[in-house]
């Protein structure tokens, strides 16, 4: 069930993102009245000519050829090419197979996003050429909900994410409920008591022979850090289920303070400062006690 919910999240985010990606697309099957005047946000279409002969005439900027061109896309493309500076026209290349015109290896757009540094505004001539060029969408600068082609896709993604989130939350609650009752693993209270006992033992050992036992204390603290402290941290889900987030935060506040004192005791032991090690162990012991007390406190949470 959890796996299915996660799959639903993955599919829904893909679907939603795909829908969102089309937010600025304007479908060219809309009537001209809705498209004319819109500013382009990206280049649209490709310059494709009907023959190499037309291309050569465009390269030579023979304006008279324009009248003989019937197809709107070819005519518009031709017009664009003869408007280019001569230096650029000389470098144009025509691909006989695809009939696409390229400049420095790049296809030229039929309608560029900008003209003279200003965003291009769509007009009827451009629309005619683009439709003839088999362009389905153009990317525009203004968003309009009614024009957005991927809105259904986006809302399907949103619905999927909502359903998946509800499922995951429900599953999470059920899992927490079962953990609360089954109590798998070592109970948090036991772990805290074990930590407190260990700290007590370490402190009495340190009091007996301060400098001699620092190395041993450091290695025992390392074990405590990787075993008991880590196990308590991993009991997060059980604790949140039992105490709620606020209660958990209250326990962790004390526990983290204790853990920091244990870490400090480790550093002091590594630096050979017995007095600080002992003081930190004492404070840590007290704080673990406070965490245990908070954990055992009957609350109205």
């Amino acid at each position: 069930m959890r796996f299915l919910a996660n799959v639903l999240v993955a599919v829904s985010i893909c679907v939603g993102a795909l829908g969102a990606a089309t937010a600025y697309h304007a479908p060219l099957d809309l009537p001209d009245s809705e498209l004319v005047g819109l500013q382009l946000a990206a280049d649209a279409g490709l310059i494709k000519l009907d023959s190499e002969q037309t291309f050569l005439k465009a390269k030579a900027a023979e304006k008279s050829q324009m009248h003989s061109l019937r197809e709107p896309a070819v005519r518009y493309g031709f017009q664009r090419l003869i408007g280019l500076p001569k230096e650029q026209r000389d470098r144009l290349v025509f691909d006989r197979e695809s009939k696409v015109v390229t400049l420095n290896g790049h296809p030229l757009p039929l309608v560029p996003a900008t003209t003279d540094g200003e965003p291009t505004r769509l007009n009827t001539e451009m629309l005619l050429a683009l439709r003839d060029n088999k362009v389905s969408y153009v990317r525009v600068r203004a968003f309009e909900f009614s024009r957005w082609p991927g809105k259904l896709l986006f809302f399907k993604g949103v619905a999927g994410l909502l359903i998946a989130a509800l499922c995951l939350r429900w599953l999470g609650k059920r899992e927490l409920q079962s953990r609360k009752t089954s109590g798998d693993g070592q109970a948090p209270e036991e772990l805290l008591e074990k930590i407190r006992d260990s700290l007590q033992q370490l402190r009495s050992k340190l009091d007996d022979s301060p400098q001699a036992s620092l190395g041993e204390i450091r290695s025992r603290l390392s074990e405590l850090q990787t075993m008991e402290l880590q196990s308590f941290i991993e009991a997060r889900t059980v604790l949140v289920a039992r105490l709620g987030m606020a209660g958990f935060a209250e326990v962790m506040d004390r526990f983290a303070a204790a853990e920091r004192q244990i870490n400090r005791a480790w550093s002091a032991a590594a630096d050979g400062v017995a007095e600080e090690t002992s003081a930190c162990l004492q404070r840590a012991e007290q704080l673990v006690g406070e965490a245990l007390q908070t954990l055992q406190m009957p609350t109205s949470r």
Partner: protein
Amino acid sequence: MASEPSRDNASNFVNDLFQTRYREVTASAVLFGVIVGAIMNMAITYAGLKIGFTIGGSAIAAVLGFGVLRGILRRGSILETNISQTIASSINIPCSGIIFTVPVLFLLGIELSRSQFWLFTLAGVVGAVLGVAFIIPLRKQMIDIDRLRFPSALAVAAILKSPGAGPKKSLVLLLGALVAVIVFLPAALPGITTKAPLDELDDLVRREKISPAQAQRTRDIARWIEERKLPDELVERGSKLQQRINAGELKRGKLADADVLAITAYRITKGELDWSALESFSAKKPLLFGYSDLNWRLEADGETLTRRVDRDGNGQPDLILHDTEIDVGRWLGLPDYMLFVFAITPLSFGAGYLTGRAGLMVLAGGVLAFFVLNPVAYSAGWLPATTLPDEAPIAGYKLFNRPLGIGMLLGGALMGVVASLPAIREALKSISRAGQAKESADELGFNVLVSAFVLSVILLFVASFLVSGTAREEGLLGNMNPVLRNMLIALISAAWIWFAGIIIAQCTGMTDWSPISGMALITIVLILLLAGPSDVLGAVLIGVALCVAITSASDMMQDLKTGYVVGAQPKRQQLVELVSVVLGPIVAMSALWLIVEVNMRSVGKPIGPGTPTPAPQAQALEAVITGVQGGQMPYMLYTLGAVLGVLLGLGAFPGLGVLVGLSMYLPIDYILPYGLGCLANMFVAKIKGRAWAEEWGVPFCAGLIVGEAILAMVINLIILAVS
């Protein structure tokens, strides 16, 4: 009489701060941190403007502190070294915020007066204090309760703890650093360059070290110098450009590389510059070997080379192994519109390992962007028809991945804050309780933080008012009284800085990455909307405050995490950082001013393309500002992304939107090695057990992070020295 208790308090405070039982805050640690931080700040400011490289520097400061305080002075404790790295990184880190924002003014052709320069410095200082003051109350929530990993902080802690962790772990850490150096060296060495000799140009083009256009320009320049004659049209163009500059119609900062060449040519003919000035426009060649010298190339099918095999058109199949990345996608024969490239970076791998399984979600956003969105968009014809297959990843990134990713990040972060509210409330209650009970108080009290906040907002208002002036603008607050308008902008900015600080701290906590560019983008858009699109100075001023604030906030949290692991007292770290962070923007701005002055004298342009400091990061922000001014911002994509980010966070893991959004807008070549690191952690834990993976994997990966960071720093210092 009334002064007695306060004197006692002050005395207690000083005694507590400089307690002597276990050395923590000491004069040597503070002095060492300030010196290292200032030097790193200046070096990284220059390196960042030159090549876009910045680092936090905690790891380097920790290693240096370790060597100097413990090794040479033989007196530093673990916590003392921690304090010195805290100070050094807090002074160093604000330079990232400065070099990302201030140079954009020069790029836009805005020349700062001396008083404006100091106002921008003030904004940086205010940002630094705000960033630290805002994030301190969240320490308990992020580190104690939510237990965010902060991989780099763990790496620094591993260095600090290495003397006490036993010789074996120290050796593993050193081994990690050595592996990082060996792996990263061939990726970094080609950055050291020298002038390309004419007879090697063809060979350099063939080896893909320079482009054919660069080679041609180098030949042209050599010919001009030899004949002592410049093309008439170039000189004429330079003359016209110079006239427009003199007439105030054209700003130096707006000049393109070719324009600067034309002006240089004109000034040479006038005798104002020496012919050698042209040499800075010639191609450079790497001085030393790199991965690309292994010459691992694609296999060509048939006799003619198509674009699929030879994209750069140099007449031979393209490289698979470049100096800094390996193109696994092209090697495996994936379609050109799919980008599957791994950057050669042990640091990202190490950070991924230290994050572990949780970081794997970062891969999800990268997969969504580069393996779902781009291929579908390309195949469905959603990208401009002129887009070639291999250009689809970058086109998709610009058109929708980046805005959707930033939106998702914001939505996810908002959800994360909502989900963490009980923990935040509890953390704040705990700080408040400690303050009231006059406990030994491990944290700075609210009074210090509130004072820092109020002072910062007032200073932000003053700087904003003086920079933006009283002119009426066409923004949302345009018709308002200028004093009230700037007051509101200062308050909104402060609130946004708080939220952005949380986002950045969450991101670095979960993944080690901070989306500074995304946050800067939102800031600039927000201020331009409020104050009007022509108030670029005001927007960049707030942008400076924000960028410095968020970098300082994330550094503070990283330092506090390191401090947690070694057992430092948060209050001491918070205090030293709150004071030392002020120095960072001042040092960075002074270094920037010096660079601008030198550039103006040598190439006649303050910063940007055509100067030794092209400021690549600020160029990205320049594009945003011109985009807002030209009405090109895809606001709806940000909104839709935010909706998806919120919904992602509704499920089992509130931070999911942050992770997916972050990786949608970060470069995939860094996400992939990071994901590999996460997988390596899971694999090692499965084979050898979790305890082994932690005990030995953490020091090794800390070594990877430190090794690369130090090597990168050394190589960049060499680059600066050579150039």
